[in-house]
């Protein structure tokens, strides 16, 4: 069903993206007064409503940052919770302006679906978690292991590929629901639990009776760069979303935070002056207010702050999601 649906969506995608959206997305967004942002229906740390029904997460922060850049007001966002099946159609049909729903950047999606990935706001990848008492230190030692895995996604395929490539065998325990698959792992029905590292971390942090009893193995067997997506054919909007993402990274690199950026309005550092809009006209080049980046950092924070509030409490470490200056992959081109 999913495959057939995907084919149908692809077939219509070309048609949809060529006929729709004569009006520029920025004009449309400005005239309606809010950014319509597609998010996950509930994924802790990325987009998840809290007990009061307010959306929280790094994808949600990406949406808020765009609103801050466009309107100077991070609250001018409306969220459309989307399932994995709906997300691309919602973007193609113009129901949403930007999709920030932990979506993996792949060449197929970037080209054939009529979409543009603007960048990466979280580098994920599939990993393995094992109980510490097994004494396993590398995925290469998992020959013959019983492995808990959820069906249907690429997770299952990556797992099979990895074991075949390393000439090992495994016994899969395939369970659809996250709740049940983690129960199976913690009750000892399987030796290993595999899913994206982000999922392993939050599972360990929240569900393990004693988180320290479980280790995540160093091998990451797939690349899952997650990032916001916009439609093909509107380069202006693409630029805005892309540079909003970069602005959050650049702010962290410059040491600008939501707390100190106000004082830095009068900074003498030329990079900071350009960033906050004191000199130059970067904002105007993007058809935005010259203080667009200042507003993003002031109201949403830099990337590191977003990571600290949303992901760190769940037990996430910066790792490869650190800035390039700190040994990670997060790298923003110069804002000048």
């Amino acid at each position, binding site marked *: 069903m999913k495959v057939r*649906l995907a084919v*149908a*969506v692809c077939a*219509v*995608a070309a*048609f*949809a993206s060529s*006929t*729709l*959206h*004569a*009006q520029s997305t920025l004009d449309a967004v400005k005239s309606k007064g809010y950014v319509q942002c597609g998010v996950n*229906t*509930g*994924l*802790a740390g990325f987009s*998840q*409503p*809290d*007990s*009061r*029904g*307010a*959306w929280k997460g790094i994808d949600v922060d990406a949406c808020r940052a765009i609103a801050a850049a466009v309107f100077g007001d991070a609250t001018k966002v*409306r*969220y*459309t*919770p*989307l*399932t994995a*099946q*709906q997300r691309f*159609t*919602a973007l*193609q*049909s*113009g*129901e949403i302006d930007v999709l920030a729903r932990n979506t993996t950047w792949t060449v197929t999606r970037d080209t054939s679906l009529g979409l543009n990935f603007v960048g990466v706001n979280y580098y994920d990848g599939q990993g393995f978690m094992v109980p510490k008492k097994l004494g396993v230190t590398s995925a290469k030692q998992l020959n013959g292991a019983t492995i808990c895995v959820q069906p249907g996604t690429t997770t299952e395929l990556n797992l099979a590929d990895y074991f075949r490539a390393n000439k090992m065998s495994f016994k899969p325990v395939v369970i659809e629901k996250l*709740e049940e698959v*983690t129960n199976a792992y913690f009750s000892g029905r399987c030796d290993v639990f595999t899913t994206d590292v982000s999922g392993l971390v*939050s599972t360990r*942090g*929240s*569900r393990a*009776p004693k988180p320290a009893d479980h280790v995540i193995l160093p091998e990451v067997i797939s690349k899952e760069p997650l990032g916001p997506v916009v439609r093909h054919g509107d380069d202006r909007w693409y630029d805005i979303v892309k540079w909003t993402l970069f602005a959050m990274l650049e702010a962290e690199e410059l040491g600008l935070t939501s707390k100190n950026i106000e004082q830095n309005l009068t900074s003498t550092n030329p990079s900071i002056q350009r960033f906050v809009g004191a000199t130059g006209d970067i904002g105007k080049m993007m058809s935005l207010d010259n203080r667009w980046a200042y507003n993003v950092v002031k109201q949403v924070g830099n990337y590191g702050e977003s990571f600290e509030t949303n992901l760190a409490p*769940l037990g996430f470490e910066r790792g490869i999601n650190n800035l390039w200056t700190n040994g990670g992959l997060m790298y923003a081109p110069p804002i000048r």
Partner: protein
Amino acid sequence: MRWVRENLFGNWASAIATLAILWLAWKLVPPFVQWALIDAVWVSPDSRPCRAEGAGACWALIAEKHRFILFGTYPFEHQWRPGLAILLLIALYVASALRRFWRPALALAWIGGLALIGLLMWGGTAGLAYVENERWGGLALTLLLATFGIAFAFPLSILLALGRRSKLPAVRALSVLWIELVRGVPLISLLFMASVMLPLFLPEGVNIDKLLRALLAMIVFAAAYLAEVVRGGLQAIPHGQGEAADALGLPYWRKTLLVILPQALRISIPPLVNTFIAFFKDTSLVVIIGLFDLLTSIKVALGEPAWSGFGVEAYLFAALVYFAFCFAMSRYSQDLERELERGHARTERGV
């Protein structure tokens, strides 16, 4: 004692069954009570006490999340509005259930009530802030979907059922096509069509709201099923009834409205209510298109790591809410049946 001996220990087989059931109850009920009531954690700002050794049911989850479960992502400070809307809806259900309110004013009450509910939910005037319907959720959304779904699907289904028995070929073909096509696919695929395919076929700039699209799919679906129920009722009416009405010179619509339908609908009450109940529960399928109905809200509430792992408590709560509504519906239909049957029996005796 005599009753016990006759009914529970009447013969060997029933004696064994009684003992087995007693034994099962003795094995199951005390641990459940221990878990659900005695060891339960009722209130707690976080889930730590629930995860302690020997802790029972974590009702603190419901205490913490009940606002989200009932109202979804509706703005927190305005949640009295969907709360009031739910109460209004329930009041309308109750009023419609009582026969002494069965008069034309009831229709007016419904129109007024629904308008008021719309005003409450959307706002935008009368000092209420506007809340887009993407933020509606929880029990409020479930009840609205079910109410509007049935309110539109039921009249439509009567037309479809009449259409299927019509002598006009075009009308009949159209009704048959609708009913058979829709009955031939699962509701999930209709919801998928409405939420994923439909937007792509709409012209530029036209966006039908996600909630409305889902509601349309549900109406189309429910109408097809209800139509077959109504048709069953229509077919059970003896031909003589229609012929007698014809003989009196009643035109088609008066014959249908005054003679055929009242009888047909009465005998279809049990299957109708059955379909209503099924439809009420089917609204939970909107989970697949990302609408935050009661069940989705619970699922999302469980997704927060601090509270994940207490699925049993959360789903028990959901079951309780669904049961309250469905049980009320089925009990009411039994009462209604009995009441209408009484009238029926009396007239027959009179004849």
